[in-house]
């Protein structure tokens, strides 16, 4: 019993401490900006995960043949072409998601997570582990994004809506908080900062308790 409890806490701490958004404060620009609705969060999370996994794979493929002093331009070319391809595909096949993410789909390129992980991990490990690391990072980024956008959408509009990203048709919308008690402030910028601050503090508190 205590063995898998210990394993669980290792996983928990790994998820929280290693968590790119709340632990390492990477990629905050896009996290705050687009976490106004679950659609944006999952759409962005999926795009970032795809780019992260593919860029980690490609970076770890070329890690032996790139000379040390020009590795930044090489990584930039890889990541930028991946993001352009993803952005074109999303623009063609999921127009509503593209218009709601707007410029942030292209800004994944300068998202500190991607270049950070490519540098810190993928350029030193073989393809398998870096792909897995890309996936882990992408998923925990999506989970953190989901956490913030759930809170902001719930408090801000009182409803949880999910519409099909490809056609934009509303799949389901569940009103939880009656219209009069919603805080439109939460969907605005101020709400983003507040939600992020509280969640980051909660994660820090859990990590501190874990450390003791």
């Amino acid at each position, binding site marked *: 019993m205590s063995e898998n409890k210990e394993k669980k806490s290792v996983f928990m701490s790994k998820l929280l401490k290693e968590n790119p958004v709340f632990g390492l404060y990477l990629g905050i620009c896009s996290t705050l900006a687009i976490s106004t609705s679950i659609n944006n969060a999952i759409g962005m999370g999926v795009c970032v995960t795809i780019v992260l996994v593919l860029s980690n794979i490609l970076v770890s493929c*070329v890690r032996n*043949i790139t000379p040390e002093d020009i590795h930044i*331009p090489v990584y930039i070319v890889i990541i930028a*072409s991946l993001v352009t391809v993803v952005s*074109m*595909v999303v*623009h063609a096949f999921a127009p509503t998601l593209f218009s709601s993410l707007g410029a942030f789909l292209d800004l994944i390129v300068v998202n500190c997570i991607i270049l950070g992980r490519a540098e810190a991990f993928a350029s030193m490990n073989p393809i398998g582990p870096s792909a897995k690391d890309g996936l882990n990072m992408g998923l925990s980024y999506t989970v953190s994004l989901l956490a913030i956008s759930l809170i902001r959408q719930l408090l801000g509009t009182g409803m949880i809506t999910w519409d099909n990203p490809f056609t934009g048709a509303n799949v389901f919308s569940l009103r939880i908080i009656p219209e009069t008690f919603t805080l439109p402030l939460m969907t605005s910028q101020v709400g983003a900062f507040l939600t992020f601050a509280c969640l980051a503090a909660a994660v820090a508190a859990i990590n501190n308790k874990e450390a003791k």
Partner: protein
Amino acid sequence: MKNFDKDSSAYKAVLLGIMCAICGLVLSVVNSITDPIIKEAELAEVKANLEIMFPGTSYEEIKDFTDESGLIQSVYRAKDQGVVFKIHAVGYNSNGFTFMTGIADDGRVAGYMVLEHGETNGIGSRAFEDDYISKVTSLNAGDDVPLLTGATLTSTAVKTGIEAAYKVFDAVK
């Protein structure tokens, strides 16, 4: 290939050259696949709205029109029925919004609908709901566009957009 000296600039140039070639190729291939789909989607979206405003006629885009406000993105002529304007204006949300308005040949404002907008829902977005739409569609070319209390920023943006459309309408009529 292995004994090739990795730090010589020739090796670097070749490596970068191959990478850029691959990236250029992949991008142009993907672009040639996705670009038609995007263009077609854009046209389909507009055609649906054109049908609503001026049903049952053929549409062609008017390319050369002078519009000093810079708000009008594209102008379509519904053959011998009227002219439709696709306008991008900036209201409360800095990313702006895109809407369409149609002016019939007899000067009546035949239609007004939003394509996509980021105005705060419940406040700015009221400028795209039915009561304001009916106010706008009851206007004639040249009339003053009424503002909407509570959504002043958005409705002012709509007003400037439609007034720019009036000017272009007179020029293109």
